[in-house]
C-alpha cells in the first residue's frame, strides 16, 4: 500500500526528515510517536503534499505509484486522506457541499459518474448514522464555530464519506477531552477494514488505549529510532522520550 524509502525532507533548506523508511500493508495500523520537533507533522504534510517542503532524497510509492509526483488533490483521489491537526474553518461552504464536491471529484477521477443530489444525500446520511452524528452537522459551514471535538468528528465524517485506502491522522487526539477522544476513536475504529490502512501520528500514548496499532515507530530528530509492536507504547509511557532522544543523538 505505502512504501516510504529513505525519505529526506527539508523546509527552507533545513533538513527535518533525515531518512525514513516505512512499509505499510493493507489493513495495518501504524502509530508514529515522538517528541515535539521530531518531524511527525512534517512527515504527514509531505505525504499529503503540502507546499513548502523539499524532498531531495528518497521515494514514496502509494499503490506502486510515485506519490511525491502527484498534486495534493490527485493523492486524495487515489485514496490518501489526511485528517488535520487543526481543521480549517471555511465560512460559507456547507459541509454537505464540501462532501459532495470531494466525493464526486474522486469518482470522476476514477471514471465514475458523479452522484446526483438524491443518491448523494442517501449515501451521506448513512455515514452520519454510522458515526452517530446529527444530520444538522451537514448543513453547517465547514468547521465554523465547531468545538475542538466537533472539528475532529467532522474530519472522521469526511473520511467515512471518501472511503480512502490510507488515512493519516495527524495528532487527532490533540485538544480533545476524554469523552471526545472516545467518540472520535470509536469513529475511527468503525472505519477499520482489511483493505484500509492507518497512520496515527501522536505525541501521547493515550490515543493508543482506544485505537490499537499493529506497529509503533518512534521518531526522533527526523529518523525512526525504534520500531516494535504495541508493547512499545507502554515502554514509552513508563520511560518517556528522554532515552530515545539520547539514543538519537548518539
Amino acid at each position, binding site marked *: 500500500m505505502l512504501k516510504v524509502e529513505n525519505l529526506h525532507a527539508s523546509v527552507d533548506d533545513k533538513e527535518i526528515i533525515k531518512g525514513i523508511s516505512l512499509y505499510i500493508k493493507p489493513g495495518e495500523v501504524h502509530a508514529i510517536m515522538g517528541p515535539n520537533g521530531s518531524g511527525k507533522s512534517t512527515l504527514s504534510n509531505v505525504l499529503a503534499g503540502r507546499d513548502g517542503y523539499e524532498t531531495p532524497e528518497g521515494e514514496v510509492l502509494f499503490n506502486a505509484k510515485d506519490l511525491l509526483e502527484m498534486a495534493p488533490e490527485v493523492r486524495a*483521489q487515489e485514496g490518501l486522506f489526511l485528517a488535520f491537526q487543526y481543521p480549517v474553518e471555511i465560512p*460559507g461552504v456547507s459541509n454537505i457541499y464540501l462532501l459532495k464536491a470531494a466525493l464526486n471529484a474522486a469518482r470522476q477521477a476514477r471514471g465514475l459518474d458523479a452522484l446526483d443530489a438524491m443518491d448523494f444525500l442517501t449515501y451521506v446520511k448513512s455515514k452520519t448514522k454510522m458515526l452517530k452524528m446529527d444530520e444538522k452537522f451537514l448543513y453547517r459551514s465547514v468547521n465554523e464555530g465547531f468545538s475542538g471535538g466537533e472539528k475532529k468528528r467532522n474530519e472522521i465524517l469526511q473520511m467515512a464519506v471518501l472511503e480512502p485506502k490510507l488515512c493519516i491522522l495527524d495528532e487527532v487526539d490533540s485538544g480533545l477531552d476524554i469523552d471526545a477522544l472516545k467518540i472520535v476513536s470509536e469513529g475511527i475504529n468503525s472505519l477499520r477494514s482489511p483493505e484500509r490502512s492507518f497512520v496515527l501520528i501522536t505525541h501521547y500514548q493515550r490515543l493508543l488505549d482506544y485505537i490499537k496499532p499493529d506497529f509503533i515507530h518512534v521518531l526522533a530528530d527526523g529518523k525512526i529510532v525504534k520500531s516494535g509492536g504495541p508493547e512499545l507504547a507502554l515502554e514509552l509511557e513508563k520511560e518517556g522520550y528522554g532515552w530515545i532522544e539520547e539514543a538519537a543523538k548518539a
Partner: protein
Amino acid sequence: MNQDLKITDFYQSEYEKQRGNLAGSELGWLKVQREQAIKNFSENGFPSPREEEWRYTNVRPIERKQFTSVADITSTVDEALLRGHRLESADSLVFIDGQFSAERSDLPQLPEGAVVKNMADALASHSELLEAKLGRALHDESHGFLDFNSAFFSDGLFIYLPKNSALSKPLQLLFVSTKQDVAQLSTIRNLLVIEEGASVELIETWVGEAGHCYLNAAVTEVLAGENSSIKMTKLQAESNKSYHFGGTYVKQAKHSIFNHQSFSFGGALVRNDLHTGLRTAADVTLDGLFLVGGRQHVDNHTRISHTQPHATSREQYKGILSDKARGVFQGRVIVQEGAQKTNSEMNNHNLLLSDNAEIDAKPQLEIYADDVKCAHGVTVGQLDDESIFFLQSRGIDSERAKNMLTFAFANEQVEKIELADLKLLVQEQLLKQFPQEGIEKEWL
C-alpha cells in the same frame, strides 16, 4: 479644464433643448429647482478627484462622452432580459431607458391614502406633496451628480405611505437600458415618503444589454418617519460598458429601521452613494458586496451620521477584485456631540484575486461624543493558502478550490437576503461572475 467647459456647455444646451419636455415642466416650483441645478452644474461640472469624497474615483470617462436621452424610445426591449430579472414575489414598476413603462409594470394594491406612482405622473397628480418633500433628503449633500440629476430627471418612483400602512408585497423597480444608436442617458429620481409606523420593502434592479454604453444617473431620497421600517436591496448587474451613478440619501426619524443590501456586479465605472442620518434610537444596517473584474471600477461611498442618542448602525461590505479591477470602499461614521450611547460597527473585507487589482479602503470614524461604542475593521487579502490546501487534500483541484472559497466569501452576503426569489436572483447574478468549475447550482 477645457474638457470640463465643453462638457458643461454640452449639458447646458441639452437642458435648454429638453426643458419643455422634462417631467413636471409645467410646475413653477420644479422649474426653479431645475434651473438652479443646471446653473450649479454648469459652474462645477461632474465631481473631481480633487474633492475629498471623490478622491479615488475619476469620472473623466463619463465626461469624455456626450450622453443624451432619446425622448422617443423606439428600441426593442430584450423581454428575456426583463423576465429573467423579474421577481415573482413582488409588484413592479418597470423603466425602459429612464421612462416608465406602464404595460410592463404590475402596480400594487394600495392601502387607503397611499400613493405608488411613477414620478412623472405623480408630479401631475400630487404636485403639492412633492413640492413639500422633493429634495428634503438632499439638504446636506452636494456634488455634481446631484445637480445633474435634479436638472434632468425624467422619471422614477414616488411612494407615499401614510401612518401605519404597508404594501402587501415587496415592490421591485426594474431599470432596463436597451441598445440605442446614441450613448443613452437615463436620469431617475425616486422619492419614498414613509410616514410614522409604515413599512415597505423595495428592490432596485439595474440591468442593461451586454456591450452597450450608457449612463444611469439616479438619485433616491428616503424620508423614514418615526417607527417606520424600510428594507431596500439594490442589484446592479449592468452592461460592462455602462456607467452608473446611484445615490441613496436617507433621513431616519426616531426609532425608524432602515436596512439596505447592495450588490454591484456590472458596469465599467460605478459609484454608489449611500448616506443616512439617524435621529434618536434609529437603527440602520448596511450590507454590501461588490465583485468586479476586467477594468471595472466600483466605488461604494457610505456615510452614517448619528445626530441623536441611542441609535445603532451596523455595516458590512465585502469586495472581490480580479484582473485590473479597482474598488473603493469609503465608510464614514460621524457621531455628533449629542449622540451619546451610539452603538456602531463597521467592517469591510476585501479579496484581491490578482496582482493588478486594487482596492482603496477608507474607514472613517469621527466621534464627537464621549459615551459611545464604535468598532471598525478593514481587511485586504488573498485567499487563505491553508484553506486551499485543505480542499485539495479532499480531492478538489486548486482552481475549483479557489472558486469555491471566493464564492463562499461572497455568498455570505447573499445569504442575508430573506426574500427567497430575490436571493436566487442575486445568486444567479453572482454565479455569472464565476468560472463554473467548482461551483454548482445545487449549492444554493
